[in-house]
Every structure is written in structure tokens, then in C-alpha cells.
């Protein structure tokens, strides 16, 4: 009844909401990637120098071996995200 407590509220009940939810998922995935990348840069710098500043992290442009490893990890990460999303019903 309108105006009274709704015990089983469903808010996301339109098809567009699924797309919106997908957008939120990608936003989180992007943020997760930014963190993984940052951690990789920190690890690399600690390996190389044993110490670092925030500016070191901002300035680092991963090159060569490091850039390639990050690129492989990015691709694997996203392939997994999309493959898992596509699994139900997919052949």
C-alpha cells in the first residue's frame, strides 16, 4: 500500500538498469586496475631503489619488460571479466 513500509522493495526492475549496473561494474574494474597498476609501480620502484616518494610513482612510465608484464596482466584481467559475464547461456 502506498505510503506504508515496503518490505520487498525492488528498485532495479527495468532493462536499462542492467546496463547501468554494467557501467558501475566497469567503473569498479577500472578503479581496481588503477590500484593494481599503482602497486606494480611501487613494487618495481622498491625493487630498484628500496625507497620511493609519491612523485616517483607519478613520474614512472613503465617501460620494456615492466610495460609488457602490465599489459599482459591488464588483458588477462579484462578477458576474465568479460568471459565470466558472458558465460550464462553462452556456447
Amino acid at each position: 500500500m502506498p505510503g506504508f513500509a515496503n518490505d520487498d522493495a525492488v528498485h532495479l526492475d527495468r532493462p536499462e538498469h542492467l546496463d547501468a549496473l554494467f557501467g558501475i561494474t566497469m567503473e569498479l574494474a577500472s578503479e581496481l586496475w588503477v590500484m593494481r597498476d599503482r602497486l606494480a609501480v611501487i613494487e618495481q620502484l622498491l625493487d630498484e631503489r628500496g625507497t620511493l616518494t609519491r612523485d616517483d610513482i607519478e613520474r614512472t612510465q613503465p617501460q620494456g619488460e615492466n610495460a609488457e608484464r602490465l599489459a599482459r596482466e591488464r588483458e588477462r584481467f579484462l578477458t576474465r571479466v568479460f568471459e565470466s559475464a558472458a558465460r550464462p547461456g553462452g556456447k
Partner: protein
Amino acid sequence: MSTAQPTVPDGMRADVELAQRGRSEMQFLQAMRAGLRPLQARLRERLEKEAALEEAAGDIARLREAADEVLAEDPRLGIAGAALRWNRAVLTPRAVDAFEERADELAPKAAPPAPEKIADRGEEAVPRYWRYEFHGTAGGWDGHEHMGFIHHELVYRYLLVPSFPGDIFGQRTRVAELAPRDTYTDICDLGCGTGQFTLKLAQAYPEARVTGVDLSLAELRYAQRRAAEAGTEWDLVRAPAEDTGLDGESFDLVASFILLHEMPPHAIRKVFAEAFRLLRPGGDLVFSDVAPYRLRSPYQAWYDDWDAENGHEPWWRTAATIDLVEVARTAGFTDIRQEALGQQSYPWVTVARKPMEGLA
């Protein structure tokens, strides 16, 4: 290795470095496209197995229907569509953020040397269709003072160059070299953007005076900067390609690279008429654009059309189905021929000549 980002692509500044967030966000967007590839390959396999697609080839509406039926139950199509749409929606805003994060260092590299020299026909001359949000570019081509730089140095570098097959700047060189004459004195590049094709024209015909026309002031500003970096100078004009306001019969080559698919068919016809007006008798037209669907495989035609629909490309289908030979002939051109320069007929180039007086 393919998605790592070590070398500087052709024609881009070597000294563009983003902070960690901007860099990794842009790389994430590129990796999304790579990560979608296995899923898209599976979709392709399914579609190519279907005789329905072969049967519908040649009629894009039927082709789309046939594919929809085959894939009705397959969640992969929806996932790919939603992912690409999200990717495009955030691409420009992310690139703008990445620029802003480093604005102190990047803005001086983006600034045009003499912006007051860019001729401007003003807001009134801008056609309504140009205001649509192309490619999901938030705020359009002019959404940021340095959008030209952001587009060329960040979006192209991080996303378009690694994501698209073939040497996309080499393609522009080959189209420039396809112009029938060995030398030109006055070249006009319509829809020149940041000068990606303009630079190739200038390099192929170093003795020519070069004019670039575009509707986006931000793109023209960075075109001016890029010309200066390359040690040259172009006349730049903000005007519609179909109504440039430039003097008639003042060019011997009028060219364009991927302009036409951004315009509705009536405007494409006007661009050919304008090119005819701009050319001196005997002058050449070289327009390169998207491949016609009829020359693509059924799968590729389906993909182009599906992707255009999902990618804010309102005029792709009409551009991929229009008969440019007829359009050129109607505008008065002769010696019209078309040539495919790469795989699956892209780049697709239309070459034509304005007849010498008395011969028309």
C-alpha cells in the same frame, strides 16, 4: 606485447607523459578492447557459420535482422555492446582528466603559436548535424580548449593506434600519394582535424600552399601547433566543408580523409559541389572514407553497422551505402574512379577531376 606502449606512434610527441592515474585509466580502456576480442571472435564464428548471413548479404537491414535472430539468446553480444558503449562514453572525459592531471606540463605543448591567424566563419555557419555528439565525444569536438591535443596525443595514442589494425597514419600517406599529379601548388584538406592527413599531403607535395578546413576550433588550434612543430605553416579556416567561403578556382587539389561519414547525404552532395567550385579546371579531388558495405564480407558489414549504431556514428550507414561515383558525376566531375587501398576495401578512395573548360 601488442598492448604494451613503448614506442611513440608516427606523428605524435615523444614527451607526453601522464601521471599514474591518467596513464593506467587510459591503458585500462585500451585493454578493455583487447579483453573483448576472444568474446567477439566467438560471436564471429557463430555468425560466419550461418547461411542466413550469406543470404542476406547486400541488404544491411536484412543482414542485421538475420544476425539478431542467430544471436538472440547469446549474452555475449549484449556484453560487447555495453562494454564498447561504456568505453566510448568515458573515453573523452577520462582523457580530459588525464590531461588536467598534468596540465602544467601539457598545456604549453598544446598551445597554438598564432591562434588569431585561424580564420573563423563563426557559429552561424555551423550546421546542426555537427552538434550531435559524435563518437560520444563529451561536449563534442570543441568540449575543451585543448581537445585537439587531447584527441590526437591521448585518445589516438592510447586507444585508436593500438586498437585498429594497419598503420593508420601510413594509410593517410598512401592516400595523399594517390593523387594523380606529381606536384600541386594549392591543396585544400576538408575536415582536416588536427592535421593528421594534412601533414601527409604537405609532405607528399612540399611545394604546395596548404589550406585546412574544419568546424572544430580546438582541432584547428592543435593542427596549427603540429604544422609549426613540423616546420611548416598552413592556412586554417573554421568553416563547414560544404560552404568554406574560400575563393572559387583557387586550388588544384581538394582532398579529405574520413570526413564524409560524419555528414548526412545531402551534405556529402554539397561537399562535392563545393570541391568542384574550389578547384581550377583540370584540378583533382581525392576523398578517402569508410568502405562500402557491398565490398565487405557479410560479417564485416554486419560488424561495421552494429558498431556504428552503438558508437554514435549517425551517418556511417548512409556513407557506406551511398554511390559516390554518381554524386561526383552530378557535381560535374569526370575521370571518376574508386580504389581500395587496404584489407576489406579500407581505405576506400574516390578520385575525380574537374574538366577543363569547354570539355564538360
